[in-house]
């Protein structure tokens, strides 16, 4: 019942909020709910990191006529994502304390609904249940952007919802097609089934479209900067830290295990657009004037590393990808919070309006520097571990892929350091008299800063948690690679172990 309680508790609190009137009480109740939610997550510490299967499984019939079930369970990957989501709830409440000044009750209800459905997405083991959470997430996120967003919120929110909804319509069709093939909606059972290549081809495309938009990968990323820039701080944090992870999680949970042949077939394309995302995101970030936009484009680049790690099909790559998902959630989430904090002070997100702050608000710049370093993958911080693992995986697969991804890491250094340099030591624009971080801001930044160091310096436990889940994610693909199905090998220019290729033909 742990997972159900995690999903239901925020829902219940949101019902309670409906009847509250005092704004302060609403904030405190939500904050308290965040801590209670963390308490409810304590049983997750019983998670056995060596067991390969799903744990904390809950299985009840839902619509028996169609074989739908309320089926929850987690493995290492989903565990980390759920923990990240839970951590964000109190942080989001804290960082919205001042920023959200109107319709406070509705905002906190949306926030709680978001957390609830996000946990649902990562815990669902029934495809339709997954889809229910996946789509239900759109409504609160839409409202968060559309009601509490910036000046262009109408455009950004509609773009967000249409983009993501349009992409996931075919996800539903794919789910139905899987059901027709296997007679079940249960994810573990479908993971264990085999499908014809023709079926996998179309299923992969339908799934990948939905996930690629959510990640977002290069040609489908245009909703992201708009949504990030217009969303309130908490909205941006949730978008960056949780929503984008859903896409990558989808690749890991659905594409690789369920459609291994097609994944191998499409891997060159996926790798190509991952690298395109890394380089394109980096280049565009380099030219931004708006801090939020810069970080939004850096998200595109970082998520490119994640998808790259997934589609190089090595254990290190996937480990790195999941690690990077976590890192991006921590680091980018923190950066958005910091941008929100400075916006509360200067009411501008333009870099030129916020230059030369190091002298006036040193603690703020200290944290900003830390998270910038983390974002560019500085050794000792969390992203270094993730990026290094992804790059190792990429080099294991193919030297060229690895070599192509390296400039992305350098670009990250360029755009983050440029931002940091201007922010900290640029010609002061209007720094004087700004208050430094207050207690509330310390409270929401410090946990993330500690996580940066923890994940960066002692990554072993996290890596082990991920490792347990890799075999079941990767085994299908590895079997395909080992079989060297001639149809496929002909298209697989990325696999380095080519000698056999000629022999077989």
């Amino acid at each position, binding site marked *: 019942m742990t997972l159900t309680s995690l999903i239901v508790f925020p829902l219940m609190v949101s019902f309670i909020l409906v009847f509250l009137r005092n704004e302060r009480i609403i904030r405190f109740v939500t904050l308290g709910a965040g801590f209670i939610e963390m308490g409810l997550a304590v049983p997750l510490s019983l998670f056995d990191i060596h067991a390969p299967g799903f744990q904390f499984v809950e299985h009840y019939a839902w619509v028996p006529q169609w074989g739908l079930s309320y089926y929850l369970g987690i493995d290492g990957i989903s565990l980390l994502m759920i923990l990240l989501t839970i951590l964000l709830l109190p942080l989001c409440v804290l960082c919205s304390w001042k920023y959200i000044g109107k319709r406070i009750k509705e905002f906190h209800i949306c926030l709680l609904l978001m957390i609830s459905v996000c946990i649902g997405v990562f815990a669902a083991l029934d495809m339709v249940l997954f889809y*229910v959470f996946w789509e239900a997430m759109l409504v609160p996120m839409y409202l968060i952007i559309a*009601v509490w967003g910036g000046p262009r919120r109408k455009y950004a929110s509609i773009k967000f919802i249409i983009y993501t*909804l349009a992409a996931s319509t075919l996800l539903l*069709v794919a789910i139905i097609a899987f059901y*027709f093939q296997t007679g079940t909606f249960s994810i573990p059972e479908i993971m264990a089934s085999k499908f014809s290549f023709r079926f996998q081809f179309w299923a992969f495309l339908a799934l990948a479209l939905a996930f690629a938009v959510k990640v977002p990968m290069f040609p489908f990323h245009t909703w992201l900067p708009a949504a990030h820039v217009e969303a309130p701080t908490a909205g941006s944090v949730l978008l960056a830290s949780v929503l984008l992870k859903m896409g990558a999680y989808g690749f890991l949970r659905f594409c690789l295990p369920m459609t291994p042949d097609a994944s191998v077939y499409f891997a060159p394309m996926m790798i190509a657009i991952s690298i395109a995302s890394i380089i394109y995101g980096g280049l565009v970030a380099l030219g931004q004037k708006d801090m939020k936009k810069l970080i939004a484009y850096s998200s595109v680049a970082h998520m490119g590393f994640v998808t790259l790690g997934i589609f190089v099909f090595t254990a290190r790559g996937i480990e790195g990808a999941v690690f990077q998902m976590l890192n991006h959630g921590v680091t980018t989430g923190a950066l958005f919070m910091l941008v929100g904090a400075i916006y509360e002070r200067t009411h501008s997100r333009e870099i030129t309006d916020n230059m030369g702050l190091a002298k006036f608000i040193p603690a703020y710049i200290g944290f900003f520097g830390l998270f910038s370093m983390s974002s560019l993958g500085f050794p000792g911080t969390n992203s270094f571990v993730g990026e290094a693992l992804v790059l190792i995986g990429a080099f294991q697969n193919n030297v060229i892929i690895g070599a192509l991804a390296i400039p992305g890491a350098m670009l990250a250094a360029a755009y983050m350091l440029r931002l940091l340099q201007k922010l900290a030591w640029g010609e002061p624009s209007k720094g004087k008299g700004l208050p430094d971080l207050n207690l509330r801001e310390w409270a929401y930044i410090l946990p993330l800063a500690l996580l940066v160091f923890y994940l960066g310096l002692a990554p072993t436990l996290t890596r082990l948690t991920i490792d347990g889940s890799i075999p079941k994610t990767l085994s299908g693909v590895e079997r395909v690679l080992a079989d060297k199905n001639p149809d496929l090998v002909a298209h697989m220019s990325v696999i380095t172990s080519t000698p056999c290729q000629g022999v077989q033909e």
Partner: protein
Amino acid sequence: MNNSSLLHFVTTLGPELFQLFFITTLFLVSVLRKRQDKTCWIAAFSVIGVAIAALGLGNEGMFFAQAYQVDGLSQFFKLAIAIGFCITVLNGKNLPGVASAKRTDYYLMLAFSTWGLMLLSSAVELMTMFVSLEISSYSLYSIISVRKGSQPAAEAAIKYIMFGAAATAISLFGLSYILACANTSYLNELTGKITLDCPIAMIGITMFMISFFYKLALFPFHFWCPDVYTGSSNETAAFVATVPKLGAVVALIRISHMVIPGMAMTDVLAILAALSMTYGNLAALAQKDVKRILGYSSVAHAGYILIGIVAGTQQGLAAAAFYGLAYVFMNLTCFWVIARISPAGDNVTLDDLSGMHAYAPAYALALAVGAFALVGIPPTMGFTGKLFLFTSLWGHGYDWLVIIGAVNTAFSIFYYLNLVRYAYTRDTESPRTIDASIASRSMALVLAGIVLALGCIPAGVYQAALAATQGIWKI
């Protein structure tokens, strides 16, 4: 008729007989009473009607020369129709658009139309179907024009009657073909006779279905739909938009069951379904009037319902029945809000929804739930209904229709989202005067709650729909 068979007759036909009694009472009141503005008892009567229809679930029997069959399907739909009627009556408690002297007559017509639909859900003979459909249509023709001093209402009524007459004529023509070819009009005898060996009968049955397509507002028989919704008063539109669709669905389920699957007609249905949903959704994108949006949305939803009919399997027909019910609830939720925020009875445009979140949070929430349900966003009834429809059709050779249906969700999100967007993100200086009584607000929330609850826990209702369609499999 001896005593026990009379008792059987009365208990089995309870819902219809009660409705008939209701009609008689309304008629007498209308004739005898001077003051007609007290309408509470009508609402009470309709609630009793729902109870009786609920008690009637599970009845079985054949009446009137085997032309009238009481089975699971008919009782399921009678209950749905009774619920729809009850909500419409509650919705129309003030009837701002109707002169007070005409109110009882208005309800009389409404009850008459409902009665016709109840008969339709039990009819298993083509003539009986036809007559029941006409009973329900004729009363609608008259109440559409009942809107105080409104020219568009008259125009709408004429449009409705013209299209109705044309559709009826084509239907009758088709009926003549069926009779000529198969020599019977009983559905159970027709089963198996309508094959491609007998193309005339095939054409005949397709033509016969047109009057139901017209009721359902399926493209290209939908032209009346947006005009009638905007022309008629909000309360009338709420009825026209929902309850008659149920009648059409049940008739289509019965008819299609005897010819499908694997018939050339299925292709026609599939193409019409695809056109209808695409056209309805695209046309709705440009609308500003809320009722017009819902009008085009109903064209689109007619296409969705047809997906289940195209599948033709028991699951498919049950899914169509479930979706029909879902559609009624979703639409009535929206119409309830429309009627409440417009106590003077004028049409509501998108701009009028501005700021609802502040001055009418309950209505804004109900409207949002209704709109997102119509899009098909989980966890609402609209989503589960669509899921059942799509799942039932997949693998029957019409996968393309499923894909079109799914993609259509993306077309439709924009205009439904507009309802939510205006209600939630815009602010207004001058709040509208609305009907803010506790009863109305709680009813809005109850309707929204039903849409959500049956979306989360659909198993029971879907099982009922399955059991209902199981009945016709035995014929």
